[in-house]
């Protein structure tokens, strides 16, 4: 960012401001030569085909891989070779109206050019102020968005300066930084003649829009580069696999297939029949196969298990769910089980695709490197989340049926049974996940428990599920003495905690959340209460999964960073769910009385009647 500010200051000081924004389309060729796509470059700490680099850069700048439907490789080439034209093109999208207003940008446009933003005083002033600040400071939402824009500008700046495409091997250290073709740096040997010739030909063909010569030049360039000696170069096969992965986009395909499977399961549940079941089963197996293959390829590309960040963990969540669909169908479980599992899989994969998460294979922090625990811990935790998500869905279904069709007792009992089974499995998996996480922590940080926010929230969710499983064992309200003692204990803890929290503005309303939650989890009885608890406890899981990184943003586990949007989605969805549960409880209470919501049914309290 520093360099960019310097460059902008220099360009402003030398009296050559960039031209005004021009939004006329810049013509491109329509087909990218495959040889060009496959050129090996070094980028972001690994070697990759030019295709991946182009996708990464175009996605990083514009927010989408296929900007205006254009091929990312051609676009990257255009930015590099015709930087003057693209400087004025509106590439950077600033969707937030508030942000545009805050920065004093025109409110009637969404996208802005490099020249416009780099010459925009309020933005540069803010960025320079942030730059001046020292130390690890938490950014406020405005600052983190400014930071994001500055990162895009910085990327573009390096592309325009021709510094991004690095296909020339450097040696003798296999880890050395590779060179660019035509922007020699200090210590860079002369670019071999064949490479320069092919590169110049490629540039000429590109600028004159000559597809045939471009194809020839791309082939020559690739051949010339491949002929150069290199201390390390990934295998041809490895590059082909990565190109295949880029082209197939298995996870986008995956959620579509799983969504189809979901629809078919809905059909099968509504109109049971052999053919509907079979079609749903085929689609489910298809989704599972696509996902498994996608994960395997990604594992191969990264050279490690793809379980290092939020995007990759969502893939595992979906994979676990799709495995569950297939298993449940194979074991001839209720169609409802397969339906909910398909829903979990499709939704989590869909979220991975549409949320502003980074989908590219990145280098990982040393603590994640080279450990068997990541392979055990992350998939285990994701399996737990998948199962608990199923429990949450079934709990909703159970509550809905209880409120809207309270007479369908057999269905309610079946749902309650399935719900309980998921709860047990999910809680066990969550416990195992915490235990393996604790063992991993012991082997990398030297302590098995450190009260890190992620650890703490995972334990909070686990304790909540344990409470659900235990509270349902008591069918009657505890004796008045117990309740009184419990109330005293609760008030004592509340007083102590509130004393500590008095200085935290954001936590002023903590007792209004904590007391009803404690009461619901400990005093309420009966199947509806159990289902409601399960629905709410899942939000504790969500808090552990995303909230700690995105809402609290502290602690050792904050390796991945996101934007404030995720926290907003979470809060919105959580509130909506709370309202839904409240509404269902209200309907049930109106129809059958408050006892039906908060107490066990009469026949349960009277075992002989049921025996």
């Amino acid at each position, binding site marked *: 960012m520093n360099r960019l500010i310097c460059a902008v200051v220099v360009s402003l000081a030398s009296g050559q401001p960039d031209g005004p924004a021009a939004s006329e389309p810049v013509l491109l060729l329509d087909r990218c030569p495959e040889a060009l796509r496959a050129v090996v470059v070094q980028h972001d700490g*690994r070697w990759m085909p030019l295709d991946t680099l182009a996708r990464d850069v175009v996605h990083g700048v514009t927010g989408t891989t296929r900007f205006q439907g254009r091929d990312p490789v051609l676009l990257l080439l255009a930015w590099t070779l015709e930087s003057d034209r693209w400087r004025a093109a509106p590439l950077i999208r600033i969707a937030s109206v508030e942000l545009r207003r805050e920065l004093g940008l025109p409110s009637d446009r969404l996208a802005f050019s490099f020249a416009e933003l780099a010459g925009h005083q309020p933005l540069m002033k803010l960025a320079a102020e942030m730059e001046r600040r020292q130390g690890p400071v938490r950014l406020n939402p405005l600052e983190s968005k400014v930071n994001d824009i500055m990162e895009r500008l910085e990327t573009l700046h390096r592309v325009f300066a021709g510094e991004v495409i690095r296909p020339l091997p450097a040696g003798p250290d296999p880890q050395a930084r590779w060179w660019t073709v035509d922007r020699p740096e200090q210590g860079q040997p002369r670019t071999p003649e064949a490479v320069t010739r092919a590169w110049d030909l490629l540039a000429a063909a590109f600028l004159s829009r000559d597809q045939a010569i471009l194809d020839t030049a791309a082939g020559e360039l690739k051949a010339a580069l491949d002929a150069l000696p290199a201390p390390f170069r990934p295998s041809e096969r490895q590059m082909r696999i990565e190109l295949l992965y880029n082209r197939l986009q298995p996870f986008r395909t995956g959620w579509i297939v799983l969504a189809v499977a979901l629809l078919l399961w809905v059909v099968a549940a509504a109109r049971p029949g052999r053919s509907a079941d079979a079609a749903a089963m085929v689609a489910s197996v298809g989704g599972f196969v696509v996902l498994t293959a996608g994960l395997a390829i990604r594992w191969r590309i990264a050279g490690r298990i793809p379980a290092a960040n939020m995007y990759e963990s969502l893939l595992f969540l979906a994979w676990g769910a799709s495995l569950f669909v297939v298993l449940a169908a194979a074991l001839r479980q209720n169609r409802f089980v397969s339906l909910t599992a398909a829903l979990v899989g499709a939704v989590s994969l869909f979220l991975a695709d549409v949320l502003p998460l980074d989908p590219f294979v990145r280098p990982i922090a040393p603590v994640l490197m080279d450990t068997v625990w990541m392979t055990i811990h992350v998939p285990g935790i994701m399996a737990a989340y998948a199962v608990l998500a199923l429990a949450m869905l079934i709990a909703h279904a159970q509550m809905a049926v209880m409120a809207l069709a309270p007479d369908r007792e057999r269905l309610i009992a079946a749902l309650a049974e399935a719900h309980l089974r998921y709860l047990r*499995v999910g809680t066990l998996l969550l416990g195992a996940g915490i235990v393996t996480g604790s063992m991993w922590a012991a082997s990398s940080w030297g302590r098995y428990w450190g009260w890190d926010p992620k650890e703490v929230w995972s334990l909070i969710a686990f304790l909540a599920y344990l409470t659900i499983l235990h509270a349902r064992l008591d069918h009657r309200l505890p004796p008045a003495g117990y309740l009184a003692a*419990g109330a005293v204990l609760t008030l004592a803890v509340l007083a102590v905690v509130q004393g500590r929290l008095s200085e935290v503005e954001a936590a002023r309303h*903590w007792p209004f959340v904590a007391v009803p939650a404690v009461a619901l989890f400990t005093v309420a009885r009966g199947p509806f209460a159990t289902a409601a608890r399960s629905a709410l406890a899942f939000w504790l899981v969500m808090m552990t999964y995303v909230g700690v990184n995105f809402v609290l943003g502290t602690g050792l586990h904050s390796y991945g960073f996101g934007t404030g949007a995720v926290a907003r989605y979470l809060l919105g969805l959580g509130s909506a769910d709370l309202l839904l549960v409240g509404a269902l409880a209200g309907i049930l209470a109106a129809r059958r009385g408050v006892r039906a919501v908060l107490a066990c049914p009469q026949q349960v309290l009277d*075992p002989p009647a049921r025996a």
Partner: protein
Amino acid sequence: MPLLSSLSSFLASTFLGCLLLMLLAAAMAAATVYETVAGSEAAMTAFYGSPWFAGLLALLGINLAAGLAGHRASPARRTAFLVTHASVIVVLLGAVMTWGWSIRGQITLAEGTSTDRLVVDQELLRVESETAVIAEVPLPAGASRARTVDLIPSGPPDGSGSRLSVARRLADSRTVERVLQDPASSRPALEVTLEHREESSSVWIFADEADSSGGLPVAYRRIDDQREMARLLGEDTTGPTSAGVLRVECDEQTVERAVEEYMSAAIPLGRSGRAVKVLRYLPHAVVGEDRQVADGGDGPANPAVEVEILGPDGPTRRWVFARFPEFDAMHGREERLPVRLRFIASPTTAPSTPIEILQGPDKRLFARFTTGTREVRIEPLAEGRMVPTPWPELRLGVTRSVEQARLETSIEEVRPPRPDPVPALRLSVTTPQGPREITVRKYAPEHLDIGPRHYRLVYTDRQVPLGFNVALRQFQVRTYPGSSRPRAFESRIAIADPIRGDQPEVVVSMNHPAEHGGYSFFQSGYGGGQDGRPFTSTLSVSWDPGRPVAFAGYLGMIAGMLIGLLRRQTLGSTASTEAASPADGRS
């Protein structure tokens, strides 16, 4: 005894268990929010490490134990019930062992060095007298509880021994300097404020000192000679080329001429029979360690003239410094001749800092700015008024002044703590003369005098001997190819153990600790490595007898839950448990 039995059944109840789980969960949720505001250390003190939190966990342990003792689970579920709940107790026991007995600390080594001591994560206050260590008081993590030390165990006959106690621990501290009015002092001080756009910084400057903490060096000079003042203000010019004036006092006669005149010829001093000649003029004289004066260049920082006094007792040479008129007296040279010399350098040659605050004999203040091109600008100052400077957008003013000033340094708490905090201890001292308060910052010893006795207070970390020697051979940061992103941190260490013998070299990296003598060594941080300096590597070290116990508890807990789950599967339908097993109700 119905009360006792209902108390014991309450302690064993599922209701209490559920309540405790939820209260713990609610408190922990509050703690994570508190942590974002107050920092991890404060969260540890206020929540996770607090007595009430430990009390809740202990109550949970009692609840589990009582539940186990009086369990009424059906035989089919007994195994799972017993294994799971007993294992949770084992986990809690392991935690207690870790809390009570484990040692956690760090060793920080530069490449090629070694140590046999471990710096433990346990702070202590050491009280030293001139001859011995009087006390080492361990401070519990994040302690706020008072710890008292008797400084003089065998106090005076009246029994009023001096006592020292820890009143409070400040998570982060900084030193603050305050200027106070003190009739005992004779030094004036000014608060000078510099404003640049919207930012301003203030600094206290004592007379005849300079300070550059505000960015630009600012000096405060008192001039007691009206004519020198006039010269500095540019009101009296002896000529633009003159280096200044040399004033010679001899036998109640005063001769004052431009330096250049003394250089061209010896000037006679009235009827004394002596004459004065200037041999050399140096705009920037440098006094070497051998006390020889040398030419320090053109920068007019320390103008000086070398003077030869000719007379009946033969020629004598002497250096006269414009800025240090008392130089000879200061350095103990005897005054052999009844001649006093004073060199008043001309204004253009005398600035030592770009900004000088000048105060003449009439106490009026002026700012004298010297730019890089040696242009001088004078601005009269009045307290509280900002004046422009030659530098764009920079304004200066004297905001406060104290005639008899004393500098007082105090230590203040910083809230919330910064990322690299410097903790401090606020101690209260009870002496026969009355109570006193003293603050000690970590690693910065303070001195304490009580009557004739002298003490040194050291706030530091406890160190324990490892019993063996750890040497860092090499530290390496491995990066991802072509980038500066770290891929691995590796310390190659060698352990020399007098009992178990020398160990082969091992590499410690993230996720790959080394073990020796019950200690585990983990890669935790590094420094250095730039500008040819060697790397330093920080290894965190732990010795934890509770860890295997807790891990055994983990395994038991998961195994118990698994048994329970599989049993249920084999026993068949379970949804009806909400109805069918009231026997579990009070377990």
